[in-house]
């Protein structure tokens, strides 16, 4: 059963990606559409570059999920010292770096298309960059800091996790970046846009799960090999 989980999730994600492409580029309109709530025009002034939104924001959600997983598992590891939590934290941390890179790069390209700027030093963008750098620091510490680095890295991961709620709410009306929260762009999506967006999020969730399960099993195998090697050395077999 367990051996089929990763291929099954990957296949579901792959089918989802194809379907999302169809939904986003063929079914979803970019022109002005009348919103469900009164006379609010939703999607006004949306241009073709808005298509980046369906992947950029979905990746950002996965980034938050990965960072949350890293933070939660790091706290659990610090409390219980159970290596299983540490393996999940490491896996989620590496995946968060990947999703973070996608969010920053696609966001920057979208900014160039929409605002004619590659980067703006706004609160949310700057905090997102800092979060990504913290995650890169986490992975580097795990890889190069040697024995005992797990606890140090776990502390770093908890620090990074704290940044997530700030990033989500840290947008003021005067900022370039689209709004978040109850009156934000995601919450006010309507019709086909809403369907396409949440389908994209679901697809990326399957992709995220496939990656994390795969990476956790790899991290566990690495730990097992390391332990066996140490035991063999101690016993004088090797």
């Amino acid at each position, binding site marked *: 059963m367990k051996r089929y989980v990763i291929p099954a999730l990957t296949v579901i994600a792959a089918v989802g990606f194809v379907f999302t492409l169809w939904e986003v580029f063929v079914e979803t309109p970019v022109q002005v559409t009348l919103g469900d709530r009164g006379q609010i025009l939703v999607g006004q002034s949306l241009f*073709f570059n808005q298509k980046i939104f369906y992947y950029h924001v979905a990746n950002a959600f996965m980034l938050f999920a990965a960072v949350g997983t890293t933070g939660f598992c790091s706290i659990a590891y610090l409390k219980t010292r159970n290596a299983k939590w540490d393996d999940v934290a490491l896996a989620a941390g590496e995946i968060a770096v*990947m999703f973070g890179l*996608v969010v920053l*790069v696609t966001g920057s*390209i979208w900014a160039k*298309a929409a605002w004619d700027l590659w980067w703006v030093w706004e609160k949310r963008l700057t905090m997102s960059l800092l979060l990504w750098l913290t995650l890169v620091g986490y992975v580097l510490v795990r890889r190069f800091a040697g024995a005992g680095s797990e606890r140090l890295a776990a502390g770093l991961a908890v620090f990074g996790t704290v940044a997530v709620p700030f990033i989500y709410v840290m947008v003021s009306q005067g900022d370039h970046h689209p709004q978040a929260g109850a009156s934000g762009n995601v919450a006010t999506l309507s019709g086909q846009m809403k369907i396409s967006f949440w389908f994209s999020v679901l697809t990326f969730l399957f992709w995220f799960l496939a990656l994390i399960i795969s990476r956790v099993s790899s991290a566990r195998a690495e730990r097992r*090999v390391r332990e*066996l090697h140490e035991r063999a050395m101690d016993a004088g077999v090797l």
Partner: protein
Amino acid sequence: MKRLIVLVILVLAPMAHADNAARQACVQAMNADPQFAKDIVKTANEQADAEIAEKHLKAADQIATNEKHVILAYAAMWLAAAGFVIFLWKRQQGLKDQIARLQKDLELALKDDATPDTPAAGAAKAKTKKS
């Protein structure tokens, strides 16, 4: 070469002078007739406005139908995902190699332990342990 330069100067000088003379005549006419000056400014502004409006329309059209950046963003996303999958795959391969190496070392060590302790076997055992 020098002759050519002199020739060019001789041809261009009267033309520049003529241009200057026309400009002076125009300035004088504008100073003399305020209505004429107004008409000139109005025509110039209309031309400039039309040019600016055209530029804005072109820019708006470009933003509205900009496919280049959408393609770039998608390519970047897939590139990062592919890079991460390759990284995972390579790490998995490394792990497999490590397990195979460990198994080989273990078998060798067990075989060494099973052989009688002749001086040659002892030396080989020491060599294996050292490596």
